[in-house]
């Protein structure tokens, strides 16, 4: 049993090593979002659909990459401290029971940036921690 466990940890590590950009990823929001920084707890609450409003009560629109996208795997594990399958489980339980909408899934990082730029209240993530036109990057603390 421990062998398989370490194999798994090594595999996760390997994914990070193979996508060096992923580990540096940034949290991006639409330019109309007032916040400059976000706490890990708050980010986790947003992505587990517990927090649905920004501090100024603007509705949050959550974007995600596909479950098996390396940037999503890195974001879930590194930033949220959750495996992608646990996130999916939470979204499924919340959405199929009618309690919340699942995050909106985009196909790649280009679409992620385009949708976050165009959607008021949007939050998403990218592999590069850099500045994009019309998108705000939040400092994680």
């Amino acid at each position, binding site marked *: 049993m421990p062998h398989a*466990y370490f194999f*798994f940890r090594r595999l996760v590590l390997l994914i990070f090593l193979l996508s060096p950009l992923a580990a540096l990823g940034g949290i991006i929001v639409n330019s109309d979002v007032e916040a400059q920084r976000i706490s890990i707890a708050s980010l986790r609450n947003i992505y587990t659909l517990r927090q649905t409003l920004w501090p100024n*009560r603007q509705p949050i629109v959550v974007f995600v990459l596909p479950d098996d996208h390396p940037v999503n795997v890195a974001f879930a594990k590194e930033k949220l401290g959750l495996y992608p399958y646990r996130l999916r489980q939470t979204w499924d*339980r919340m959405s199929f029971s009618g309690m919340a909408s*699942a995050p909106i899934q985009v196909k790649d990082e280009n679409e992620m940036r385009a949708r976050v730029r165009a959607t008021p*209240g949007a939050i998403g993530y990218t592999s590069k921690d850099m500045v994009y036109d019309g998108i705000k990057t939040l400092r994680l603390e």
Partner: protein
Amino acid sequence: MTASRRSGWNSLLLSGLLAASPAWADELAGPRYQIQGFAAQGLIGSTHNNFFGDSRDGVSTRFTEAGLHGSWQALDAVRLSGQVLYRQAGESDQDGLRADYAQADWQFYQTEASQLGLKFGKVKLPYGLYNETRDVPFTRSGILLPQSVYVDNSRDLLLAAPGAFLHGASVQPYGAFDFLLGWVRPDFDSSSVEYSFLGNIRPGTLKGQGALGARLRWDLPTDTTLMLTHADARADYSPGTGDTLTAGKVRFRNLLLTVQQRFDTVTLTAEYGEPRFDNTGFGPYFPSSHRTIQAGYLQGEWRFLPAWELMLRHDFFYRDKRDKNGHLFALTTGLPAHSMFARDTTLGLRWDTTPNLMLRAEFHHVDGTGWLPGPDNPVFIDREQRWNMWLLQAAYRF
């Protein structure tokens, strides 16, 4: 005979949901509609007893599930959602297509950290960890949920019912709290529910009266979930023509305790309850009874690779806490004692082949016939105490 004789509630609510007029006045800028769905097919083989079709010494293909779920954020504070479900499960469920639920949720108080709302319509019933999404294969811990707590025999009772729930959630430094408190009129009027409450299919009908439901959930920062569910439901029986039963009453009460601890790739879950059943006033041929069931399970899930999961579960069910091994029951009725209990050891494997496709395999070793589906095993004395079952399932989502 179909397994359920429903009123016009379903179609009424569904058409109401679809006909409601759109309103675009407010802030939310994301898509206001969401459509998602799933379809799954199972294969079941077993020894000695049948489960969902003729599975004994053969293969039953009669376990099919499909659903289409839609939600619409009509206003920032109002969400409409519903699900159409197709389900076939051997002789126990032959209803095919049905409206599963259709509810409106009005979140009348929202802050960054807390929400308070009222949901009404034909609402999903909170019951333990899995009940609200029990028909969505991806959300279950196995192909079958632990039958002790989530008895498929009484599923119609637990699924969804017309009524209303007040609900709230709050995120605090010491964890997230959720509660649901409501009143519904549950559906007792199906052959499998009659089987579990009245021991057979009867000429009359069981009609649900009011039921109280409540659930408290606390998600601790230690990745622990603690949950308490309370249910109290009543039904009245109207005798049919040539009925040996008189107009009696049944009552079901339960307090279900849930504990879940999540470690890195391991999830440990336990749920336990002692549901109480009361039957009174059915006349001389069906003596009044008051019994307390014991039902619970322990379950471990291990994601040993990102797309692979192993599950081990021990599930126990005693129909009468005071007569666990059924000796008293056998003595007084002459029927086999093993119908009074079931202990199920399950080993399951899940492979998320792609984000849209899941394959599962599962093996059950069962001692007892306590939750064996009655309609699939009509001859009581042919049922055998020790039996095995394997299941395969492919599930697709979009």
